[in-house]
């Protein structure tokens, strides 16, 4: 065991410790009250998040299968933040749920899997992390025990992820057959522009694209998002997607450089398709979760466009965008989670004239949507522009124009929601919803993040220094 094992492996150890604490508390005869239990877990998650900022080091473990550096630590911090915010937002829903500890055990296991994905420097480690992150999610997707759609969502998630894992595994075995190695660096040296190598990589690549739900591998997204409880939907759309994008970036940068000319073009086509299809499906959605699901598909398209640039500028823009995406999407889901927990309503018409009685929530949701649409002064504006800026080094004017015009298309469905919120005939609208203090904290953090991470350029400049 290397001497700095505890420092390099610190974030994973924290999560494992929390898992053990939760399991032990479950084994005890007398269960604590729901509120105190939730407070305890939130404090643990907060400590876990804060710990990511101290005593960081760079190095590798387990025979170079596991690599960590300041960038990876930052990426894990983003995921920790997302987990903390989601936990704060879902207290209202969890209070009345009988399986609180199980929910957290599954969610934190999934988070642990994501950490391994991010730090992987070996194809097998990546695969193990990927599986560890998806299988628990399928279980939590079923956590609205009384709703059939929740079970359906879990089923769809597990089948589609098993399918994509199979493709991924086939790709891995081909890669191993071609190069005789599972290590990223070795593969990077040994891959050539040969048909078999390209086919092997393509299978692997498709497996990963499934996880980020890029078109044409996006079909599971909407149904799963709609059926799952809101807390799980937000975890899926933010943490799970972010981890998959981080892993994809790692693979492209560290493992597949010899084939960059192949995946550069492929990524441009896939990202354009993803943006357009995601937008077109989002246009007419009536269920707000489904709308956000498709909008997140189109957001991934923009991320992939920047990934095609294969530059440090592009990578920085992607990580920056994901940080902003965490704030924006969680602000939106935070409001939806509250409305869903209190009123069990999730369609757009239920939000008619929502502003009349819920001013705070309406502003939070609107600001989040503006950020997702990329309107200044929210951070989403900077995030999207930097993605396109870094991408435009390697793409033509036509592609850039199509991407930019798609931002206008996405504007339509975001503004449609905002328009519904502020509609002013008051014959029927939702009455005031009481916002619990935890949810309020989470929303304020999200909105502050949206408003500050863009205009104050510190966050972006910090990410640049990490590379």
């Amino acid at each position: 065991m290397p001497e700095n094992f505890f420092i390099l492996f610190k974030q994973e150890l924290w999560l494992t410790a929390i898992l053990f604490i939760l399991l032990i508390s479950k084994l005890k005869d007398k269960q604590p009250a729901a509120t105190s239990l939730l407070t305890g877990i939130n404090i643990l998650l907060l400590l876990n998040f804060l710990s990511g900022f101290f005593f960081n080091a760079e190095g590798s473990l387990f025979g170079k299968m596991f690599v960590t550096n300041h960038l990876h630590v930052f990426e894990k911090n983003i995921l920790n933040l997302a987990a903390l915010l989601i936990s704060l937002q879902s207290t209202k829903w969890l209070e009345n749920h009988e399986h609180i500890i199980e929910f957290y055990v599954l969610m934190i296991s999934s988070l642990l899997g994501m950490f391994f994905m991010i730090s992987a420097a070996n194809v097998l480690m990546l695969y193990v992390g990927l599986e560890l992150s998806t299988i628990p999610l399928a279980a939590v997707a079923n956590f609205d025990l009384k709703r059939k759609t929740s079970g359906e969502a879990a089923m769809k998630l597990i089948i589609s992820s098993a399918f994509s894992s199979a493709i991924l595994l086939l790709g891995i075995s081909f890669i191993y057959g071609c190069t005789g190695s599972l290590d990223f660096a070795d593969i990077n040296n040994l891959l050539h522009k040969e048909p078999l190598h390209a086919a092997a990589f393509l299978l692997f690549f498709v497996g990963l694209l499934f996880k980020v739900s890029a078109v044409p591998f996006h079909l599971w997204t909407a149904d799963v998002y709609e059926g799952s409880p809101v807390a799980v939907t937000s975890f899926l759309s933010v943490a799970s997607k972010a981890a998959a994008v981080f892993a994809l970036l790692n693979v492209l940068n560290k493992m597949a450089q010899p084939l960059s000319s192949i995946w550069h073009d492929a990524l441009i086509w896939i990202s354009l398709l993803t943006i357009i299809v995601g937008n077109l499906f989002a246009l007419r959605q009536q269920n707000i979760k489904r709308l956000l699901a498709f909008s997140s598909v189109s957001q991934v398209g923009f991320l992939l466009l920047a990934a095609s640039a294969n530059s440090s500028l592009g990578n920085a823009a992607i990580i920056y965008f994901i940080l902003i995406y965490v704030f924006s999407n969680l602000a939106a889901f935070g409001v939806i989670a509250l409305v869903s927990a209190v009123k069990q309503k999730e369609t757009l018409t239920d939000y008619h004239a929502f502003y009349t009685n819920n001013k705070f929530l309406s502003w939070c949701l609107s600001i989040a949507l503006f950020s997702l649409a990329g309107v200044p002064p929210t951070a989403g504006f900077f995030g999207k522009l930097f993605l396109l800026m870094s991408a435009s080094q390697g793409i033509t004017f036509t592609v850039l124009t199509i991407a930019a015009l798609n931002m206008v298309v996405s504007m339509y469905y975001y503004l449609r929601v905002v328009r519904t919120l502020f509609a002013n005939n008051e014959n029927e609208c939702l009455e005031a919803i009481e916002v619990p203090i935890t949810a309020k904290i989470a929303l304020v953090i999200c909105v502050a993040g949206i408003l500050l991470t863009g205009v104050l350029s510190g966050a972006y400049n910090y990410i640049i220094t990490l590379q």
Partner: protein
Amino acid sequence: MLLSSLVILPLLTVLAVAFCKELQQIRVVAFIGTLLQLALVAYIYTAYQSQSITQSNFLLERDCEWFPLLNIHYHVGVDGISMAMIILTAIIVIAGVLVSWKIKELSKEFFILLLLLSAGAYGFFISLDVFTLFFFLEVAVIPKFLLITIWGSGKKEYSAMKLALMLMTGSALIFVGLMGLYYTAHSFDLQTISKTLLNPEAQKIIFPFLFIGFGFFAALFPFHTWVPDGHSSAPTAASMFLAGISMKLGGYGCLRVATYLLPYAAQYYSPYIIALAAIAILYGAFATMMQTDLKYINAYSSVSHCGFVLLGIGMLTQTAITGAVMQMVSHGLITALFFAAIGMLYERTHTRQVKELGGLLKVMPFISTVFIIAGLCSLGLPGLSGFAAEVTVFVGSWQRTETAYRIATIVSCASIVVTAVYILRATGSSILGAVKNEHFLSLKDATWNEKLAALLLLIGIIVIGIMPYVLQNAITAPVVDIMNHLNANK
């Protein structure tokens, strides 16, 4: 710092308004905030004047790094053109707050959005970094959408969405153009780019994106269709802001970014711009003749009048560009005054149909007089600002001797006749004549706030009308700079 306070002051006012409780408090705080804006602008003007004697370039500059790796700066400064636009903004915002005195429904949100709009407009006019400029341009879009969709009238939801999407399309094109600019010149800085010699072929590709993009804002034909719907559905203050300042953002961008930074392409595309501008002028004028709603009349006439701005820019002569800038300021004031008058009439009579109005001069002498003056100014009566600006554009246009340019100039001049027809007809049947509706007789004339708003705008119009040289002298230096730049890149 002095210039940045133009953006900070409205934001501080927004904060102050957000903490207000009562209606009266909100109004007063918003009014004081805009008064302070005007005072600040006056102070900046004196500071600018004292420096401009010795220097002719951008003054009161401030440049700090924003995103160093991407070479994005927060860089602000003013010259004569931006100074004129800032003063225009300050006047219209204060008038806007005054005419919205009576807003009761969600008044806090209304004033907050109006103030945010002004922050965006100030930021746009002072930016010397095109990224910052683009940032502020987009800041101003969403408040417009919300103002129309919440407080608007008629088919407001449709109009608000149309406006937001069309302006965003313009922004998207501008963004693509900026990317082209950035990867050709490797900078976002206005002065740095203007000093680099850009490849003419690259200019030819980038220019249409920038010009059409800003053209969406400036109602360039055929991208003007948001103007009539947006203006007529918007609440009075928002209409004033939209027509008075928002459309000027486009004109300013066409001049300062597209034409100034891409001089070769500007000359190459000049005939196309002229053609589109002439069509807009004539089409706008004829379309106005068919309107029966007062707000639609003014909205379509705005398309026609903003055509003169683009015509002046497209002609690329010193006089014509001077005229274009004058027309921006003059049209901003006139149209704001016109919308204010229409708003006051509508608030009392609850109709904007020309047919249903009549004889209002007897009932509401002040508002009716304002309406008549705005109308006369719009048709270009000498002594008022519209005449000074339009004549300058025509004289400048006549300096281009090519046949196509001559035709465009003559066609545009001819539109003045059409303007006279619709303005006189609308004024005649809605203001003069016998009182059509007995219910009108009980209506009251303008209150103090409305009078003050109208007077502020009127002073601007008359000052420019009688002493156009004040404005002309202020903008000569920057226009000469643009001309030198154009001539050096033939």
